[in-house]
């Protein structure tokens, strides 16, 4: 089976699952809340107005007709109106997504560099005090919910040692860079606006750190255990016998091998970053798509909930496929096996 047919199969399966997800989200948004029209207008609206809106929203038609209407407008890129912002949901998504994207990107960088680095350190000095510290940090990282990290980081680096801003994406006095990608750090970098770049980067650090802590701790643990088990392998003994320096073995030969299990769970990690962002962005009042989704959830904004969740579903499916491809490429055992079959 070649990589291409592997990809084709995965994409076909993904489409089936995403159609299923759209049905699930449609049912959650239509069946659970009782009457969407009543929610849209509030408890004090007169009955005839609710009735009119119900007609307008096609709520008087059977469920499968409603789903058909929803999915066909969705395929045309129309996610419906948001109750909260009174704008089309797709416009909101376009505006808020870049913020979450750059925040998660920075978190992913922190998580990979930190997790892999700490893992290598712990493996090199295994069973020493350094290993112990990494282990305690790993446990702390895993048992602490993202919102607790957010609050602790806010307290320490926002208030006690105020080196980072506590909310938003950019300070009030700083001129916004022109919109190119929507990611403020990248836009200000592209236009050479160093003041804005530094300011927006500072705004990103605490939220990204709060997101990255738990998965970073987990990645460090997996990296350490996979390196420690590989350290006893025959080819490592051979390298040592040839007189290859230990650091070179660790960084060049072993880390590449041990990276594979770490990267395989990376797709889950990155997806969990977006999920944790739902709460972390709320704490830092960071105007990203996750906070938008959270506010939609808290305000029962049904179109926005199903729209944002479906977009995240598509995104997560693509991330999973991409990471699987990277792993298949990196691991000669998987890559060559595929070719031989």
């Amino acid at each position, binding site marked *: 089976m070649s990589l291409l047919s592997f990809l084709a199969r995965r994409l076909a399966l993904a489409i089936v699952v995403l159609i299923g997800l759209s049905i699930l989200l449609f049912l959650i948004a239509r069946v659970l809340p009782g009457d969407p029209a009543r929610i849209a207008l509030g408890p004090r609206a007169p009955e005839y107005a609710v009735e009119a809106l119900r007609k307008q929203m096609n709520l008087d038609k059977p469920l499968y007709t409603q789903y058909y209407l929803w999915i066909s407008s969705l395929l045309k890129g129309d996610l419906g109106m948001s109750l909260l912002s009174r704008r089309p949901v797709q416009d909101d998504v376009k505006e808020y997504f870049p913020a979450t994207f750059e925040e998660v990107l920075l978190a992913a960088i922190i998580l990979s560099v930190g997790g892999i680095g700490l893992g290598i350190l712990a493996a090199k000095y295994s069973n020493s005090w350094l290993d112990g510290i990494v282990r305690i940090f790993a446990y702390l990282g895993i048992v602490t*919910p993202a919102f607790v990290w957010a609050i602790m980081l806010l307290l320490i680096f926002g208030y006690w040692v105020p080196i980072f801003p506590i909310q938003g994406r950019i300070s009030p006095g700083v001129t916004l860079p022109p919109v190119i990608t929507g990611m403020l750090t990248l836009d200000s970098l592209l236009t050479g606006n160093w003041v804005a770049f530094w300011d927006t980067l500072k705004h990103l650090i605490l939220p990204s750190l709060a997101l990255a802590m738990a998965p970073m701790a987990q990645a460090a643990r997996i990296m350490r255990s996979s390196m420690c088990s590989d350290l006893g392998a025959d080819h490592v003994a051979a390298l040592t016998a040839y007189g290859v320096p230990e650091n070179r073995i660790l960084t060049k030969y072993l880390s590449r091998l041990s990276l594979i299990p770490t990267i395989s769970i990376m797709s889950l990690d990155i997806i969990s970053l977006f999920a944790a962002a*739902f709460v972390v962005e709320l704490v830092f009042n960071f105007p990203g798509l996750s906070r938008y989704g959270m506010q939609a959830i*808290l305000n029962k904004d049904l179109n926005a909930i199903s729209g944002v969740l479906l977009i995240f579903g598509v995104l997560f499916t693509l991330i999973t496929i991409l990471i699987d491809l990277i792993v298949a490429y990196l691991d000669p055992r998987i890559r060559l096996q595929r070719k031989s079959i």
Partner: protein
Amino acid sequence: MKTFNLNATWNSVKRSIYKFSRNKISVVGFFMVLFVVIVAIFAPFLAPYPKHAGAFVDYKNASQPPSLAHPFGTDVFGRDILSRVMFAFRGALIMGLGVIAMIVPIGVFVGLIAGYYRGTWIDTVIMRITDIFITLPALILALAVAALLRPTLFNSMMAVAFAWWPWYARLTYGMASSVRNEVFVQAAETTGASKAHIIFKEILPNCLAPIFTKMALEIGWVILVGATLSFVGLGEQPPTPALGTMVSDGAKYLPHQWWISLFPALAIMFIILAFNLFGDGVRDMLTTEEV
């Protein structure tokens, strides 16, 4: 037909206890869990101010920093935070244990059926349905479902259960579909055993160890997701104390009254750490490699 041998059972219990206690950290985890359970059950007797767990107001003592009388300080209504944390352990435990109790039977049953009918359309349909559910992380799905229900502890448990059951279905499916081809299952089929007998008496017992391990390891995660739901106001409603709600209420008074959210946050970390260490011990205990 299995004969019940008391001596053998006692020996295997002894061996399990030995395996569990080999790792000192798991033992610490066990006692931390025991501590949380005892505090939760006997909160009305152990809490210094049991009345403060409800709608109690004492503005004279509002927002007091930690002291001997109030080790964790008091909140803006003058309620003792230590007492509220102790009562909030109850909700957290009900969350963790209740959700696991709801989803394990459902997930395991579904996984067994799919595993038994491996390769047929039943398998395909069931496993694609679980794929659909796990496309979104449990936290996001649980938040969305909880928001559309009335915010209560029970409804937040339902929301978490709704998002979480597929993981048990998948685990059981993996086990069941490989056990299904074992010789003893074929033997039972040849002797004309019923489907129910094969699924529940032959396949199920061989799937139990990883299921129990996963249960023990996941109570902590369920509590974490439950705390996150209550943090955004979708769990137990005030005045009943919930750890997540206490953290978010206190966040409004940062940085000056830091104790209002810091101690409930530490309590969340303590309870999750307890179940994680305990779960690691259970995993070591149920892993089949011999001592």
